[in-house]
């Protein structure tokens, strides 16, 4: 195929916030070409102008943003000079746009199918409803939504996050666009689901000949999917090169910095941070066979209540002084487990003991005392702090709750904590509103620390922060641990973070601990297929030890409501065989207190035993 003019040609595009020639420059002289069937990745940190670029390319800038110079040529025509109506028809038809918030982009009151048919008929009024429906179902199948003709008639709330994102891709592809602009589409998704979506995008470029402008803040994601990469920094184009070349030898210091910040799963030795427990340590927290089932009454109010098994048979010990990690994707029961560990809810089965005492067996006063020894640092830096209390009051609140110290003592101690977590003293009378996400998390940490607890549970504490800030907070945690002898329990979906910090890791899938292993063992010799799938999907630029194609079948986690018998991972596991569908495997010892729950292991060890005999 010979193309004289490239599909999309952006030349010297500048965008300013406002008409004023002095107004701040959001994009500065961006130029690139994109040809059919190619994927151009755009990468940059927060505020680098990625989304502005995406919007400018589809001529969809909202005031005060406006293009101050340059042009965007689509098939040789400058779309920025188009009349609004013309660019609107172009946008729906020839250029598709997918945003990062599928749940917000779909109308909750219409079925997914209806919405997409509507969209198709808006840009192509000649298509009949029946034809449109067939095309939608065909495409739903193409993006591998199971039973598409049934899913066509379902509402967005019945879709999972990954499926909604697929529906958005269908929505963008339905008019057979030549160019697809995908703005941060994998950001809200779980890594394993995100990996599937990326694979899908690559297939689609081949199948439909679509060119894709793929925008993301995560370099590994972009590198995974794109042919070329454009690096943006503060609105400046710092580098535009083929992916492999860029990864091998980044030319610009900013690109180098981006790459250095990336977590390494396998190639870097991170032993220093891991903090394994001393050899003769006592378990500070002992979770044994804990299960929690919620019953969901049917919407109509009649009929059998359904059982949602949020946590099933979770067992692990956390030793004093170590960093323990619980890792898993959304819906795996991490949050439910956190609620059990913090005594917000009682488990249905099993016991949780803290420092040798069952945390549920002792009445309100003892629970309060337990909560003094154990603290939780919450995930969301925005909603976890009371919005109208000053930072100082927030930090001093636990002292007030437990009736410790007088007014002046509390203030002094809160000041001290503020200093310890590295916040300026001027923050004391500030509202949390005025702080950055990282500073808010520091406030959260300070509030948890002020009672001098033994165990700190970090519930996704770092997941809202960027890599640099994560690194700083990890340094802080390390220093505080050295000073106060805390035990950390990290609950996270971010496997790279766990690799950097946790000496021992429990991997959860659908409410169950499927693997419990030392850090090294988990990353170099995982015992459970799900652990391998998780590793294969982790965002990293390294030579992967596990390829997502080998480790993960298409499909999404089954619903935790009314789980079928057998192994929960069976529906996505490439090694699935008969027994997996019948019996749920139990945790099997793999030596060195590493355990995993997979039938293949018992089989393997049985064989090994045979060999030994």
């Amino acid at each position, binding site marked *: 195929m010979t193309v004289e003019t490239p599909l999309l040609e952006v030349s010297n595009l500048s965008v300013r916030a406002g008409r004023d020639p002095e107004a701040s420059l959001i994009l500065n002289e961006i130029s690139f070409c994109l040809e059919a069937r190619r994927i151009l990745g755009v990468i940059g940190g927060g505020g680098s102008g990625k989304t502005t670029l995406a919007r400018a390319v589809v001529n969809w800038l909202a005031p005060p943003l406006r293009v101050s110079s340059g042009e965007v040529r689509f098939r040789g025509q400058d779309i920025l000079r188009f009349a609004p109506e013309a660019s609107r028809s172009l946008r729906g038809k020839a250029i598709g746009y997918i945003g990062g918030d599928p749940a917000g982009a779909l109308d909750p009151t219409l079925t997914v199918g209806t919405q997409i048919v509507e969209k198709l008929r808006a840009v192509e009024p000649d298509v009949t409803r029946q034809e449109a429906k067939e095309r939608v179902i065909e495409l739903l199948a193409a993006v591998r939504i199971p039973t598409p003709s049934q899913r066509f008639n379902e509402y967005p709330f019945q879709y999972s996050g990954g499926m909604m994102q697929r529906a958005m891709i269908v929505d963008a592809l339905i008019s057979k666009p030549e160019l697809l602009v995908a703005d941060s589409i994998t950001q809200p998704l779980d890594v394993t689901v995100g990996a599937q979506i990326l694979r899908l995008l690559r297939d689609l470029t081949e199948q439909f000949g679509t060119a894709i402008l793929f925008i993301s803040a995560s370099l590994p994601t972009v590198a995974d999917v794109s042919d070329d990469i454009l690096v943006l920094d503060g609105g400046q184009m710092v580098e535009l090169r083929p992916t492999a070349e860029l990864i091998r030898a980044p030319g610009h210091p900013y690109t180098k910095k981006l790459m250095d910040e990336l977590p390494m799963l396998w190639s870097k030795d991170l032993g220093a941070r891991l903090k394994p427990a001393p050899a003769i340590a006592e378990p500070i927290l002992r979770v044994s066979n804990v299960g929690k089932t919620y019953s969901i009454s049917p919407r109509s109010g009649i009929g059998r209540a359904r059982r949602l098994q949020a946590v099933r048979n979770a067992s692990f010990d956390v030793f004093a002084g170590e960093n323990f990690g619980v890792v898993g994707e959304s819906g795996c029961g991490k949050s439910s487990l956190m609620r059990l560990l913090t005594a*917000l809810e009682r488990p249905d089965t099993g016991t949780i003991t803290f420092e040798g005492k069952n945390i549920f067996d002792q009445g309100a006063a003892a629970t309060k005392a337990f909560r003094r020894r154990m*603290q939780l640092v919450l995930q969301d830096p925005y909603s976890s702090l009371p*919005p109208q209390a000053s930072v100082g009051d927030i930090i001093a609140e*636990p002292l007030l*709750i437990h009736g410790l110290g007088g007014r002046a003592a509390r203030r002094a101690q809160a000041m001290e904590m503020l*200093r310890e977590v590295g916040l*300026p003293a001027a923050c004391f009378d500030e509202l949390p509103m005025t702080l950055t996400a990282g500073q808010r998390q520091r406030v959260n940490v300070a509030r948890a620390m002020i009672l001098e607890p033994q165990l700190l549970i970090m519930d996704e504490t770092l997941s809202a922060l960027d890599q640099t800030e994560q690194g700083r907070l990890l340094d802080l945690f390390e220093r505080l641990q050295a000073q106060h002898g805390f035990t950390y329990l990290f609950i996270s979906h971010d496997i790279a973070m766990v690799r950097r910090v946790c000496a021992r890791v429990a991997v959860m899938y659908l409410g169950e601990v499927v693997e419990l292993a030392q850090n090294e063992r988990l990353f170099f010799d995982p015992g459970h297929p799900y652990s391998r799938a998780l590793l294969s999907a982790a965002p990293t630029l390294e030579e992967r030890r596990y390829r997502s194609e080998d480790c993960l079948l298409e499909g999404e986690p089954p619903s935790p409501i009314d789980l079928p018998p057998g192994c929960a991972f069976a529906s996505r596991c490439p090694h699935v065989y008969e027994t997996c569908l019948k019996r749920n495997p139990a945790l099997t010892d793999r030596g060195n207190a590493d355990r995993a729950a997979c039938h293949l292991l018992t089989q393997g060890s049985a064989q090994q035993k045979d060999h030994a005999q």
Partner: protein
Amino acid sequence: MEKTVEIPGTPPADDLRRLSISRRIALGAWNSLEFRIGLSVFLFMLLMAIFYPMLSDIDPTRMNVRARLIPPVFMGEGATWAHPLGTDQLGRDMLVRSLVGLRYSLLIGGATVALMLFVGCLVGLFAGYRGGLTDTLLMRITDAQLSIPMIILAIAILGVARPTIPAIIIVLGLSGWPVYARVMRSVIMAERKREFVRGATVLGASDMRIMFLLLLPLCLPPIAFVAVLDVARMMIFESVLGFLGLGVQPPTPTFGNIIADGRKYLLNAWWIATMPGIFLFLTLASLNLMGAALERSRNRVYGGIE
């Protein structure tokens, strides 16, 4: 020890920032012209209401038939400085009557709003926070109360019992609280699911502490600002009751019964009904000015602008 990390984006710590948050709100309000005008008018009215009847030594109920229907001084003709705002049909001094009326109206308006805010917020707080059976019970009571029209309730109670001031306050308060309960409940229900409430539970805070020290300070101020406007409404309701003859009984002057009596003389002595109206307007306008300025300042501070 690691050095304090300088994080960009931290606003400069000027003098304003060193003040505590409530002080910043108060200062922000004080700096606005509306607040100062409102406050000075309100204080002026209040001081007048408290001190003028005492100092001027005129009895608001003393009749003087010879000096009846004297116009206010600015009317010129036949007016006298002995009665700056004129006299009514029985020769009573309008200024003193209006000021004493203002006293009663303020008392009734303030007390009523305090009562309904207290009951409504308490009911809403418990219903919203506890949920379940508590919620169902409290809200059905609220619904029952909401279904009785205020005027009917007032006629029933005040018609049977003597319409004394405490009775009037209770009647008005009783008919007003369900709205507050409803609003409070919905706000609390939204807030109690937020992360920081769960955080407080894990910190060991009891339910009472979360309800009264965490959620109430968060949800009360916007409702309280609406309640300030309700002081005005309640003063008008008291006038309505007075108009129906169920308000404070004569000869005690309140805005309601002065206006009701003056209505008959509207053509030849318009000032009788108008003067209390002007006092009512000034008081309410000043209250609203202050409330609005405080609310704006609060929004600015909590919105992170100041």
